[in-house]
């Protein structure tokens, strides 16, 4: 019962129980008018004092109900909903009983106002659950049948409306049975029909409430998303600012040099040196632009070829051939340890190549001559793990926390190697993460660094 009505908020229940009181005032007025007319039509038939007492009693009861409704509206009780429900039951039961009593005193089965039962069953079906609709239909049928049959059997006195219906009619058992059956059938059918419609409406109301709630939740999520977007937008502006600065600097340097040569500030013997410096900056700019393009490409995965099965060991062998020479130039001890049978990963081969190239060339770049660079490839149950270890300049924990940010280069790295876009590790990180992998670094300042990455094995 409560479960079936849980979709019902008390505002609507309250509204309807209040309406019942209003309608009852109208009912009392209407009943008095009908009784008066009946008294004129059927002189000396109706027991007027009894009817007036009933009407007066009903008016007093309705006044009390009105006061109770006001108290109920003001109370803040937790069980207000169940109180309203009980109130609705009380009123409907009262109305059905009063109607029955009135009918008894105004002609019983002769009085066509017994159709009013339909109204009460309808009200019950709208307000209450289907079970109660049927119960009120049954109550109405029982009460009406009860006194009509009692009158028929002459257990109760019958009020005859002289000249309205022939006495043969209400004294015929078949007529009484048919009327009672039809009324009962109509009431049950009415209860069934109206409660079906009411249940649909209640369900809609509930759905609407739930939809409202989920809208509110979604609004909250949107606000969060918005904040996140604003954050991203800020980061993007910051990035653009940095890119602009990084892109302008080499061009400004080149332009300054060229202008100095053109304006004759550079003595002829120094001109070649200045042009070479300009070229170096131009090459730096080219490297920066291709790194930026790479970053942008990594961000826009749609533009890329489908990932394929890549043998990470094979790619590493290809890269080390190139790196070996560089390491030897720098007089570094360079060693590569590849575990046998390391499985493939699903990726774009160029990305894996770039991943190895960036990590190994960094290790070579930032390690003093005579140092060691060790590259290894192994596996654990779910991942292919690559590491690049060096005995280079290393980093402080503070520097490590910024290491993968775009354009970040430590002061020591800049001092050791002027050229560098500061994008290499950002690219590496993006590659690894775009394939669901992870990259991390362990380092100690002055001692060296160890970069490790784990890429998920291809299933």
């Amino acid at each position, binding site marked *: 019962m409560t479960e079936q009505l849980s979709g019902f908020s008390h505002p609507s229940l309250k509204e309807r129980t209040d309406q019942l009181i209003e309608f009852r005032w109208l009912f009392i007025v209407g009943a008095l008018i009908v009784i008066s007319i009946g008294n004129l039509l059927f002189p000396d038939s109706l027991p007027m004092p009894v009817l007036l007492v009933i009407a007066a009693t009903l008016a007093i009861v309705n006044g009390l109900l009105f006061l109770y409704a006001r108290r109920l509206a003001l109370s803040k009780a937790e069980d207000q909903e169940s109180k309203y429900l009980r109130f609705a039951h009380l009123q409907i039961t009262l109305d059905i009983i009063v109607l029955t009593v009135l009918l008894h005193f105004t002609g019983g089965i002769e009085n066509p106002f017994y159709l009013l039962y339909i109204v009460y069953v309808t009200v019950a079906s709208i307000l209450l659950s289907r079970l109660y609709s049927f119960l009120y239909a049954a109550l109405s049928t029982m009460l009406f049948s009860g006194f009509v049959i009692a009158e028929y059997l002459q257990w109760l006195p019958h009020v005859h409306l002289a000249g309205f219906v022939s006495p043969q009619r209400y004294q015929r058992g078949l007529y009484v049975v048919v009327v009672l059956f039809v009324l009962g059938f109509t009431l049950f059918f009415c209860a069934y029909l109206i409660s079906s419609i009411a249940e649909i409406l209640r369900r809609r109301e509930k759905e609407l409430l739930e939809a409202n709630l989920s809208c509110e939740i979604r609004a909250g999520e949107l606000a969060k998303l918005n904040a996140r977007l604003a954050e991203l937008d800020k980061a993007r502006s910051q990035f653009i*600012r940095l890119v*602009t*600065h990084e892109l*302008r*600097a080499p*061009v*400004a*340097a080149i*332009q*300054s*040099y060229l*202008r*100095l040569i053109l*304006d004759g*500030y*550079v003595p002829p013997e*120094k001109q070649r040196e*200045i042009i070479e*410096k300009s070229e170096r*900056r131009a090459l730096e700019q080219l490297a920066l632009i291709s790194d930026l393009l790479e970053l942008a490409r990594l961000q826009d995965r749609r533009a890329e070829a489908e990932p394929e099965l890549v043998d990470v060991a094979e790619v590493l062998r290809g890269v080390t051939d190139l790196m070996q020479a560089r390491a030897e130039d720098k007089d570094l001890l360079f060693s590569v340890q590849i575990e046998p049978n390391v499985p493939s990963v699903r990726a774009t081969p160029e990305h894996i190549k770039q991943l190895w190239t960036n990590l190994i060339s960094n290790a070579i770049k930032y390690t003093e001559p005579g140092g060691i660079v060790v590259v290894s490839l192994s596996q654990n149950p779910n991942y292919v793990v690559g590491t690049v270890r060096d005995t280079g300049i290393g980093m402080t924990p503070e520097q490590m926390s910024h290491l993968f940010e775009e354009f970040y280069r430590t*002061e020591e790295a*800049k001092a050791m190697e*002027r050229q560098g876009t500061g994008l290499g590790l950002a690219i590496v990180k993006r590659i690894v993460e775009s394939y669901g992998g992870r990259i991390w670094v362990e380092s100690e300042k002055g001692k060296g660094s160890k970069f490790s990455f784990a890429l998920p094995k291809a299933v």
Partner: protein
Amino acid sequence: MSKKILVVDDDPDFVEAMRLTLEPNGYQVISAANGDEGLAKVKTEQPDLVILDVIMSSVLDGLQMSQRMQENPQHKRIPILMVTSIANTDYAALFPTDEYISIDGFLSKPVAPDVLLKRIGELLQR
């Protein structure tokens, strides 16, 4: 006696370009690669003018150096010429130059040699 100019910039090519412009015109050029080094050189070398890059390793580095110079009464009178590769007016709002740092000139990279020499000449005459 030739005037001494301190160039503070982390881009060695910019320092080189300044040197090429200024030295033939009779200025003595010294350089520093960051704000801290710059402040130290201000103290030891007592330059007549400072050319300062706004964005060095961090955005505020150049600005902080100029602020620190303002705090020291001895260095307050040294004119500062700010140079930056930030040209866009949007970013200029980042540097409320009038409010809390007093710089004497603001030039955008790349700087034309004749413009630079003219501004330096003006600032040194004051």
